């Protein structure tokens, strides 16, 4: 194993919620191979759950024919996870703040917030021609949790 790039792994999953556990199983393996500790893995896993759930729900609208791509890349002490879908894309800048008092009792709208809380950096890209979303999340897994 070289230090510079370990365990590049890509999954293509059909859009079913049960496949979230498959992405989690992959994270578990990647964590084991890269020395990511259990607590850290838990928080990264939390962000991964949210990203894959959004790709299935909002992106692919649970169409099992549409795929969710999940990739894992470890370089040094950084893990980068990408989650892509074949959905309509969206404007991540206009998502409501779940901490605003008027949103506090809303039953939804916390997923992206959790992703940003538990990872160091989260960015969203829309695919060419507006189709699809790719979320890129990075975390230095040797740092303490938030």
């Amino acid at each position, binding site marked *: 194993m070289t230090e510079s790039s370990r365990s590049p792994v890509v999954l293509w999953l059909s859009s*079913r*919620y*049960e496949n*979230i556990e498959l992405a989690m199983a992959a994270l578990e393996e990647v964590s084991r191979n890269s020395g990511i500790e259990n607590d850290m893995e*838990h928080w990264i*896993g*939390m962000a991964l*759950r*949210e990203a894959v*759930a959004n790709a299935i*729900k909002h992106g692919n609208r649970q169409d099992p024919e549409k795929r969710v791509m999940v990739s894992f890349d470890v370089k040094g002490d950084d893990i980068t996870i990408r989650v892509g879908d074949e959905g309509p894309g969206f404007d991540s800048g206009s998502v409501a703040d*779940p*901490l605003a008092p008027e949103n*506090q*009792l*809303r*039953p*939804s709208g*916390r*997923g992206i*917030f*959790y992703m940003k*809380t538990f990872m160091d950096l989260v960015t969203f890209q829309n695919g060419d021609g507006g189709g699809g979303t790719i979320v890129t999340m990075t975390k230095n897994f040797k740092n303490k949790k*938030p």
Partner: protein
Amino acid sequence: MNKNVTVRDAGDVKVLDLKGKITIGAGDLHMREAIHQTLAGGAKKILINMKEVTTIDSTGVGELVGCYTTATNKGAKLRLANLPEKINDVLTVTQLITVFDVYTSEAEALEGF
């Protein structure tokens, strides 16, 4: 699918024991159903025991919030007890820990309910 909610009585309090993952497509709907059933049965005091919950995601958190609102709207009280540290953290970062009535133990939660 494993049923990960069981309901029991503690005096006039309905205690819901949650277990495992409260996540999208998994435990999220069971909790809602159980709460709705106990409310439909006329319960006015509901205690959610989170001791055995291993993971909760934003959908699960949303369900908790929804159950809290539904209970309040029906004039019932809802308390949470035994939050594992990680679950506590998840509610804390979204500032929900202050919204919910949270107790460290079941005994404490039942006292003066």
